[in-house]
């Protein structure tokens, strides 16, 4: 696995030419030009109080695809991601304008239950955040609180851990505290926990930034596995990572908005990862991925 990662990393040569060259991934040939959007942003603005953090985002996240959001720090990637499953509702004063459509339905619609939105659109955070409970209870928590009907919780726990490639490592210590796991294992536990409630979409905010390279590779492999069943959106600072895992990539940047006086994030360019990294159409994208700014 490490070898494979090594090979992947080698094939991406940063600071060479306009873009970062990557190997065409096998899926690319089958990737439709337009994503079949399961989740879609229509002219989305996100505000914190009167501060406009992100503006005018139009994006489609394709079904069973991995979409990466990249861009310099502070351009609003996390903000946009958190508005995709209404996590930003929890921030006092945060508000979304425009529409976020999930399966054609606006998740900010007046009749929509934010709890159900978060159940269907799960989230994995930057820092592994297992609950202070046993490994087993970490997985079982979601199904329990959402009132999922399960025939056998044991089976569900095994299934989730297996899908998250963690079962082999923890099957003999399910009753132990989740805190006894390593950082990488904790992060896979958090992914397993998310899978256990059977969401349609998984949002990941820099899921590997607290992990070492080996754990990172494991999570990336896992994402490739998960893509068969789930739609994944990942924020990453690591362009090689975006190049390795994402089918499509969206590049954001922040500009000084003269109207509001804020530094506001905008979507610069969105396309297939190969296109974004090899033939960016926007100068800012090209500068960013070739390491000239950001």
């Amino acid at each position, binding site marked *: 696995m490490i070898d494979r990662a090594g090979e992947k990393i080698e094939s991406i040569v940063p600071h060479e030419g306009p873009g970062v060259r990557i190997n065409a991934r096998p899926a690319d040939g089958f990737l439709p030009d337009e994503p079949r959007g399961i989740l879609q942003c229509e002219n989305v603005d996100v505000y914190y109080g009167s501060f406009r953090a992100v503006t005018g985002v139009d994006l489609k996240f394709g079904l069973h695809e991995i979409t990466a959001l990249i861009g310099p720090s502070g351009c609003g990637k996390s903000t946009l991601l958190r508005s995709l499953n209404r*996590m930003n509702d929890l921030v006092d004063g945060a508000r979304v304008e425009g529409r976020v459509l999930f399966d054609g339905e606006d998740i900010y619609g007046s009749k929509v239950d934010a709890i159900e939105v978060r159940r269907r659109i799960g989230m994995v955070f930057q820092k592994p955040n297992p609950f*202070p409970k046993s490994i087993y209870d970490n997985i079982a928590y*979601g199904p329990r609180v959402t009132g999922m009907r399960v025939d056998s919780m044991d089976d569900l726990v095994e299934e989730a851990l297996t899908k998250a490639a963690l079962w082999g490592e923890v099957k003999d210590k399910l009753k132990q505290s989740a805190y006894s796991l390593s950082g990488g294992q904790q992060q896979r536990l958090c992914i397993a926990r998310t899978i256990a409630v059977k969401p349609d979409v998984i949002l990941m905010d820099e899921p590997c930034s607290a992990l070492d390279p080996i754990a990172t590779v494991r999570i990336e492999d896992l994402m490739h596995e998960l893509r068969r069943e789930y739609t994944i959106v990942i924020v990453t600072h690591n362009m090689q990572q975006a190049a390795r895992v994402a089918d499509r990539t969206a590049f954001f940047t922040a500009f000084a908005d003269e109207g509001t006086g804020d530094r506001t994030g905008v979507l610069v360019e969105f396309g297939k990862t190969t296109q974004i990294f090899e033939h960016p159409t926007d100068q800012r994208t090209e500068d960013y991925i070739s390491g000239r700014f950001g």
Partner: protein
Amino acid sequence: MRTLGGTIDGAIRPERPLASGTNGERRPAPLTFLVLLWLSLVVAFGVLVTLIVTIIIDGQGQFTGRLLSEYPASSPDRAGARPAILGSAWVIATTAIMTIPLGIAAAVHLEEFADKRNWFNRMIELNVQNLAAVPSIVYGLLALAFLSLLGVRDKNIVIGGALALSLLILPVIIIATREALRAVPTEIREGSLALGATQWQTTWRQTLPSAVPGIATGSILALSRALGEAAPLLVLGALVFVSFDPSGILSGYTTLPIQIFNWTGRPQEGFHQLAAATSVLLLGVLVLMNGLAIYIRNRFQKRW
């Protein structure tokens, strides 16, 4: 010798050798400061030890089983603090039952549910902080006014005293609970909510359980403060001479601090010794309670 050390805007700092044979912490200024810190500690600790030793010496003659089992009497040789001990237990238990759930609920609302940018919530928050600093006698007066309003004639009852003490420690419990809740990382809440749990489930199953040690510690410390209070109870007309066991929340009562207050005011030397012995008893209980609080904190507090 080579001079290390970088330059900032052309400024050059002469480097001292590492092995200069001196200790930077032992130069006059830091040394003076250290000595002052030590002195304050010695003074504070000295006063405390003197006080405790004095009352132990004063009270040693009266520290017998009689203190626990007998009722007050006109002769110090026959008197005990039994009603005061039971009275304190009744009042503190009632206070705990009244205050702890209320304090936790208020703190949970303020910390987990209230919009912190709302001016009204901010005002409440500020005032809770202020209330914790109000002198205890004021709460006695407040309870007195409240009971009068309700038309309670005999205000010297367990529930009356508990009301005054509850008002006194409610802000303390609210603050302690909020601290404990705040110590639970946001990531835990977010992790729970991101799975489709409600705010309520998140609070009930994740945040509160993690905060229990902190809440318990804070509550015990608050109750130990209430246990030592006499002023608000005296305002309510607490009896100073009780020769019966309190039998319920509507029963008359006296408490340890009031019993001490009473005996100290008597002319006979024997009563002063009784007061000292009772003080030692009260101190012992307080030390035990604080010890328990510290134990809970160290044993169960989560390190995130």
